């Protein structure tokens, strides 16, 4: 509890960390999602070419 209170600055410290998590996590999820979609599509196209 003492830790979470951040010496009275909880309302400033935690939003800063939460926002960092949201922005960096969002960029990661967006980039990784697009990467996986493209890889699946590429495998589909190349798999169909092979036979």
């Amino acid at each position, binding site marked *: 509890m003492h830790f979470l209170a951040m*010496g009275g600055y909880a309302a*400033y*410290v935690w939003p800063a*960390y939460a*926002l960092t998590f949201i922005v960096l996590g969002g960029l990661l999820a967006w980039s990784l999602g697009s*990467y996986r979609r493209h890889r699946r599509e590429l495998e589909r196209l190349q798999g169909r070419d092979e036979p």
Partner: protein
Amino acid sequence: MSLHRFANPARFMRLSAALLPWCSAAAAALIAIGLYLALFVAPPDYQQGEAVRIMFVHVPSAWMASFVYALIAVASAVALIWRHPLADIAAQGAAPLGAGFTLLCLVTGSLWGERMWGTWWVWDARLTSVLVLFFLYLGYLALVNAFDDPGRGARAGAILALVGIVNLPIIKFSVDWWHTLHQPASVFRLGGPTIAAAMLWPLLVMAVGFMLFFFALLMIRMRTTLMAAKIRALRLAEIDRLAAARRPAAAS
């Protein structure tokens, strides 16, 4: 049309496939260690108390905001001068990440400033020049996507990125050239850091973690762009094949 233009992306795909797992793992480990050091180990500041912990996300974001822009400018120069096929892809892959770091820098700084300066925002040199950096990122992204011909978009974006580089020294030296609320540099300065070692270490670990996170994401994004180009080429080849298969039938 020489072969090396195609060999380079192929080599990049191989190299990035080998580097990506290590880069991602190192980024995750350093950010985890950095968070632990920043939240549990680093001491509270004698003036700012626990609010100083905002520094451990604010300062690495600020460094990355400028670093990523410099990288985009260098890649843009390479793209304009040598027409290296990966340079535009790198610049465009990096831009949303740089915009994200700049946004983080601005908002975490605002949270910190409200407590320590008593205001969310002031139009002083450091804050304004970083806001300009954020708009340069947004302008670059808008410009690159504004043309039907991606090549023209890339060239226009590259020129904007190069013009905008004058903003980087303004950001760096704004705290020395003008009176501002923002403190002057306490890490990268002549005569060495003035920040206490117990705070410098967590800060550096977080900064290297952010840097590796950026490079891992940049590799993922560049690989995505190259895969998209391959997908387009395969689809076009398929259309050609179908058209060729239909032609004799139509002629008979």
